[in-house]
Each structure stands twice: as structure tokens, then as C-alpha cells.
């Protein structure tokens, strides 16, 4: 018997719940559903799913609260569902440890792709970095060398400064996932520099001029307006 990935869907709208259930079952996933946040925690702890899909707007519990308590004891991948008018919630969810978010309304192929990506990320984490070979990450013509602290483009050192390298290295560690502005600022400049987006923007502009052929049509580092940055997934 084949082993299926098990997904817990936490969503209070019955028609969306139905859609997700049908879609996921049709795509060979084991699906458990619940509309209540309290029940969700029990289900996750007793069934050990491979992935959680979480709607932030639940009737009995704030979705971010649920995420917070889940993250206290579990590192299971979480994809958050949210409406567009709540960028703040999105950012908050990512900062709280959600792996990805998808905006309602969503296309089914997009959702399935995100699910596959989140599951893959978990696996690479378990396999201690399949993508990263000997501390080196390859993304197209870009190479991040974690040992020698340098970034190569077409095998030539692009000459990043210390800060710029740390920025790219951070994005590389989470390649394919959006990292929020706040998280980057905290990681690179420490907690005191909060809300100074300017320094981050300037560094990012410099990096882009060193690694992208065309800064306004990037191949590697992408922007999610109002949320954060992400580096393209490794090949």
C-alpha cells in the first residue's frame, strides 16, 4: 500500500472546506478536516499530519493564536489561507512561523504547487539539505557558497559586502519562501533597527545590481509588495 501524505485542513467555510477535501483526495492525499481551532490542535497532535492548511479567520479562535500554540511544540509545515485585505495578518503569520500563505480566492493548481513545495521543504530539512551540497547552493547561474562567504554569478565572484552576503545567505536558507521585511531586519541588523526599511531597500538594490542582469526584471530575488522578499527555489 502506498504511503500518502496526510493533510489537516482547518477552515470554517463549508463550501471551501468541501472544495479542499475533494481536491486533495483527488490528488492522493489523506485529508482530515475541522472547522474549529480547538479541535484542530487535538487532531494535529494525535494524527501527526505532514502538512496543515490553516484559514486565519476561524470562529472560535484567532488563526494566528492557533499557529502560535502549534509552533510551541511542532515544526510541521503550515500553509495559511488569507484574504487580500489583510496583509498585516499575512506578515504576522509568516513571522509566527507559517511556511507559506495563499490568498483567497486561489486557483487549485497554485494551491497544489504550494503544498508540494511545502512538503518538499520539510523533506530537504530532514535530509539535512539535499539542495545544499557541501555548503553550496545552486540557483540557475547563481551560486551561494556558504563556506567561503561569497556569491558567484556564472562562476565569477559578484563581490558582495559582508551585509549583502548575509542577506542573500538568509534568503538562500529559505529559498522559495517569502521572508518578511521585519524578519530580515531582525536577523541581519538585530532587534534595534526595526521599521527602518530604508537600509534594507538600499542593500537589496545594491545586491540586485550585482547579481541580476536587469534589476527591474529580476531572475533571482523577488518582491512581495508589502510583505517581504523571496529567492527562487534551487534547481
Amino acid at each position: 500500500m502506498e504511503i500518502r501524505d496526510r493533510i489537516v485542513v482547518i477552515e470554517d467555510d463549508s463550501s471551501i472546506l468541501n472544495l479542499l477535501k475533494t481536491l486533495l483526495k483527488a490528488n492522493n492525499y489523506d485529508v482530515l478536516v475541522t472547522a474549529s481551532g480547538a479541535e484542530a490542535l487535538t487532531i494535529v497532535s494525535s494524527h501527526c499530519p505532514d502538512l496543515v492548511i490553516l484559514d486565519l479567520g476561524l470562529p472560535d479562535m484567532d488563526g494566528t493564536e492557533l499557529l502560535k500554540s502549534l509552533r510551541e511544540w511542532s515544526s510541521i509545515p503550515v500553509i495559511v489561507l488569507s484574504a487580500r485585505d489583510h496583509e498585516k495578518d499575512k506578515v504576522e503569520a509568516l513571522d509566527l512561523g507559517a511556511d507559506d500563505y495563499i490568498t483567497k480566492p486561489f486557483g487549485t493548481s497554485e494551491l497544489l504547487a504550494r503544498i508540494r513545495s511545502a512538503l518538499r521543504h520539510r523533506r530537504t530539512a530532514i535530509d539535512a539539505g539535499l539542495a545544499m551540497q557541501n555548503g553550496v547552493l545552486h540557483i540557475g547561474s547563481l551560486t551561494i557558497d556558504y563556506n567561503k562567504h561569497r556569491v558567484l554569478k556564472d562562476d565569477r565572484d559578484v563581490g558582495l559586502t559582508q551585509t549583502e552576503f548575509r542577506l542573500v545567505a538568509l534568503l538562500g536558507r529559505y529559498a522559495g519562501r517569502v521572508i518578511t521585511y521585519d524578519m530580515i531586519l531582525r536577523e541581519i541588523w538585530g532587534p534595534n533597527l526595526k521599521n527602518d526599511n530604508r537600509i534594507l531597500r538600499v542593500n537589496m538594490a545594491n545586491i540586485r545590481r550585482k547579481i541580476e542582469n536587469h534589476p527591474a526584471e529580476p531572475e533571482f530575488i523577488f518582491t512581495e509588495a508589502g510583505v517581504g522578499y523571496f529567492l527562487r527555489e534551487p534547481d
Partner: protein
Amino acid sequence: MKKKPVLPEKLKDCLITAGILSVASIICMILRRFSSTDTHVPMLFVLAVLCVSRFTHGYVYGIIASLLAVIGVNYAFTYPYFKFNFTLTGYPLTFLAMLAVSLTVCTMTSRIKAQEIIHLEIETEKMRSNLLRSVSHDIRTPLTSITGNVSAILDNDGKLEKFQIKMLLEDIRREAEWLNRIVENILSITKINSDVAKIRKEQELAEEIASSAVNKFHRRYPDIPVCVSVPDDALLVPMDAVLIEQVLFNLMENAVLHGKTTSHIELRVSVKDNQAVFEVEDDGIGISEDLMLHLFDGTLPIGERGDGSGHNMKIGLSICRSIIEAHSGTIAAENKDEGGSRFYFELPLDSMQYS
């Protein structure tokens, strides 16, 4: 303009009333030293009452002021001083006339003020109902198509070919996506109009916002290439990133839907006179004369857009204008000499920050 500061407003009106009356009294006291007659006194107080009615809210302060003035003038500033005397020939009549004048002026100014407020309310109401009318029209069009297509599929079970069903379903998806974009636009408007959630401006890189808007656009319209050009130096522009991204998306989508023959789009960012200039150019059919006049104001009557696609551009564009104006910027459109249209908007740069 909201009803929040009720108490401070009352306090302010009281202070204004007291202040104006005291000023009048002081002038009277000073004049008494130089003048032997009292004839200027009632005049001065009529003026004072007029000022009170003009600068306070409602009738109350004007009426109180005129009563105080009548009593004060009789008691303090006309002979015999600091005594009431209603027996002097002519004085009761003078006072009655003053009260009448004061009350009339007060009523008149109050009424004018009320009319101004009503006028303003009518204007906003007109705008609101205009927008509501076009929004509901814009929502109903895709909904009609969705409902129609769904019932076509459900009611004709077995009679339709597979490819026909697929076509109907694709229409449903397209219309639903369009519906979603209308809702996103409406949400942006509420973001700008509500007092609580003011737009949150941050220093953003022009190239990032441009490329993220183009990415979104590519997901919807993969067949239309967009050429992006930005200044060589990093350009930081104070803006709400999500809203400006939406403006760029709306402009590019308009270029496709209303340019009709658009085969590619150019998105340019440049700096001019301490302004960041964003331009979206297409090679479509351009904008017709009569459309040009009402492009951004959302006042075009329904049925007069002469486009027939059902996908109305005026909500999108009037929302673009609201967003740009909330950034203290300007937006405009023109036809290019070589064909196609150019939409452009300017956002003020921080003179301090831009170096």
C-alpha cells in the same frame, strides 16, 4: 468633520462668545474716556453679536450673546452706569431693534452654514451613489455570465460536447477572476476613505514595485510582454506598496482590455523635478475623444462607455486616481502620436531622503 470632539467644540464656542463680548466691552470702556455720547455702544455690540453668530455653531451662542449684550449695554455702558434703566426715551426701542437684528443675523448665518453642510452632503452622496451604481453594474455583468454558464452546463446534461463545457467553464473562471479584481479595487478605496486606516507610506524601491506588479500581470496575461525600465540608481519613493502595485496592475490591465490591439506594454520609471514618474504605454487603439474627458472621474453614465466588453474601465481608473491623490500625486493619460495610449502618474519624492 466627524462628531468625535463634542466637548472641545462646545468649550471653543463658549470661549469665542466670551472673548468677542469682552473685546467689545473693553473697546466700549476705552471709548467712554474719549467720547461724551453712548451712541456707538449698541452698534459695537450688534457687531459683536454678529461675529459670535458667525464664528460659533448653532443658534444658542448668538442668542445668548445678544441677550447678554442687551442687558450689558443697558446695565454697564449707558447712563446711568451699572444700573438697569428701561425708562429712558428711545432706549427700549433701540434695544428691541438690536435684539431683532442680532437674532436675524444669527438665524441667517446658521441657515447658510446648514445649507453648506447639506450641499456638501449632497455632493458626497452623489459621488457615492455614482460609484455604487457603477460597482453594482460591474459586479452584475460577470455574475450574469457565471450564473448563465453554470445553468447552461447543469441544465443541458449530456447535450453539450466536452469542448463546449470546457469553454463555458473557462469563461466562468475568467469572470470570477475579474470579479475578484473588482472586489480588490473596492477594498483599496475603503482603505483610503476610512479615517482609521490611513495609507501607510514607506520608502519603497521603484524597481521592486514595478517588477512585482509586472509579475502579477504576467500571471494573468502571459501573452503580453512588458518591457520595464527604471533609473540606474536605486530610486526610493514614499508609498503604500500594495496600493501603487495595484495602480500599475490596473493600468496594464486597462492597456490590454481597452487598448484591444495591444501587443506589448512598456513600463517606465524616471525622476523629474523631485517627482517619481511612472509611465505605462501600450500600442493599442488609444483613447477616444469623449472618453478622454471623463477618464478618471467615474462619472461616465452607464451605457456610454462605447466598449461593450462589459469590463468597465472607469472604476479601475477612478480608483487609481484616488490612490494617487491619497499620495499627493497626479495621474493623467494621453494618446501617443505613433498610436496607442500613455498613462502616467507622479509621486512626490522625499527631498530629504532622496540623494
